[in-house]
């Protein structure tokens, strides 16, 4: 069924269809309408779930961690400083291997205080061991939430579904609302391998010594390092499971895409503009304009940021003259985080092949600064002509 709704409602409808049974969240702009919608569903009895209002984001994720440990499909959502306040529990959830799904409605972080969109919040959580997926439209938001639960529960790793505040969260767009029976068939009830139960008591994630140890059954139990290494291994292998999720989803709903990348006019392109989230769709407009001028340019949306689809990305960019990375976040003191990751992937797969593209970095839309399509087009035009700067260049800066 096609409906017209805003991005937050698309996420809420996805969570409802997934039959999440515990929702804990603290309202923060621009995530608020999402949690309001969910509390409404629970209050009206449309959703059989416990909605637990909490006093902070730290508690919101702590509730989800407890609920997930007890075998409940759990959901939370946040933005910006809320996500930063949650940071300790973010690390905990992945270390404890709990398949929680969290929507991050991207917003700039303070100081100075700002409520508008950029992606500094979720990018700053890159190294927490969560799977991170970026959405570019409302259909992707609802579909990604559904796929995220399937993926998370298969690999026992939590997933962040990230989408741009306002640009996606507060705008209305038509999208297909999956049928509940179809979602039930796609996503069976959550049956964890282990969950806390009075008949099977256990200590979870207490002090774990540096070395391995004998457990009470006399078997060798992992030390901290083994457990952390398995998280890394499983995250890397999750790329495979993500591809399976995409295939399975297409079988049920007919929408199939490359799970990791979203290329646009890239096949014959000499230059490729790369980004995360909604900005990639804006860059498609720029690419269309530049194509009319004869500039052979395409756009590559990166959907999975962690685990990073390094091999797929390097393969897609092989033989290109230039790569232009446009980011709404920055690893302060160096360059955009996506820029660094992309360069390392190119080095790994293309070094010595003689086909390493020139890579440039642009920073845009920080703190919600309007990204004018004309400015963006001008930037891509200049970058396609030759290297503008070694350092990241800020688009629309008035300094």
């Amino acid at each position, binding site marked *: 069924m096609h409906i017209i709704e805003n991005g937050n409602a698309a996420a809420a409808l996805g969570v409802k269809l997934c039959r999440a049974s515990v929702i804990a969240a603290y309202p923060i702009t621009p995530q608020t309408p999402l949690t309001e919608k969910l509390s409404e569903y629970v209050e009206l009895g449309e959703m059989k779930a416990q909605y637990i209002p909490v006093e902070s984001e730290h508690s919101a994720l702590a509730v989800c961690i407890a609920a997930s440990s007890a075998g409940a499909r759990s959901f939370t959502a946040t933005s910006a400083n809320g996500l930063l306040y949650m940071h300790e529990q973010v690390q905990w959830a992945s270390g404890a291997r709990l398949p929680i799904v969290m929507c991050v409605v991207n917003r700039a972080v303070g100081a100075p205080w700002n409520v508008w969109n950029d992606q500094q919040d979720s990018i700053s959580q890159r190294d927490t061991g969560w799977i991170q997926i970026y959405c570019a439209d409302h259909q992707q938001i609802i579909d990604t939430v559904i796929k995220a639960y399937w993926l998370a529960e298969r690999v026992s790793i939590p997933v962040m579904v990230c989408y741009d505040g306002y640009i996606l969260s507060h705008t209305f767009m038509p999208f297909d609302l999956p049928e509940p029976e179809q979602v039930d068939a796609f996503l069976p009830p959550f049956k964890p391998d282990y969950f806390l*139960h009075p008949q*099977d008591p256990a200590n979870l994630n207490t002090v774990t010594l540096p070395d391995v*140890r004998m*457990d009470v059954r006399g078997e060798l139990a992992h030390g901290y390092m083994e457990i952390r290494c398995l998280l890394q291994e499983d995250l890397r292998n999750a790329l495979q499971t993500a591809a399976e999720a995409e295939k399975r989803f297409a079988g049920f709903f007919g929408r199939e895409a490359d799970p990791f990348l979203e290329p646009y006019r890239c096949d014959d392109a000499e230059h490729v503009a790369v980004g995360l989230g909604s900005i990639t769709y804006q860059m498609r407009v720029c690419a269309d304009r530049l194509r009319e001028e004869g500039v052979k340019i395409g756009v590559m949306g990166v959907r999975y940021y962690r685990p990073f689809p390094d091999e797929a990305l390097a393969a897609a960019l092989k033989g290109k003259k230039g790569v232009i990375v446009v980011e709404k976040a920055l690893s302060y003191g160096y360059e955009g985080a996506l820029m660094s990751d992309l360069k390392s992937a190119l080095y790994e797969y293309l070094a010595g092949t003689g086909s390493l593209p020139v890579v440039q970095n642009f920073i845009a839309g920080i703190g919600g600064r309007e990204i004018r399509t004309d400015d963006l087009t001008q930037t891509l035009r200049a970058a396609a002509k030759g290297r503008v700067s070694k350092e990241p260049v800020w688009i629309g800066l008035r300094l």
Partner: protein
Amino acid sequence: MGTRNYRRKTSHSEHGAGDGGRTGSWRVERPVLDPSLCIPCKRNKEACFICWLFCPDVVISRTIPPTINLEYCKGCGICAEECPTKAITMADEAKFAEEDKE
């Protein structure tokens, strides 16, 4: 409930002595039991066992006499504190270092 595979991916420990590693080496003081003061020993009867009940590391057995697993006893002294007849006393671990060498 509970597969080996998933448990091995997380830090998962069960109720029992020493699931946090060989913690006996942490001990500064060692609990020593005097059977002449211990209620179950004196009466040769299953009685009292307050030490067994209170030990946070589950290293004291519910036997006559109660035994203390020194591989895992951290020497917290709770047993000595709780024993109603003061049958358990805490002795300086350095005293035993020489004996252990011999």
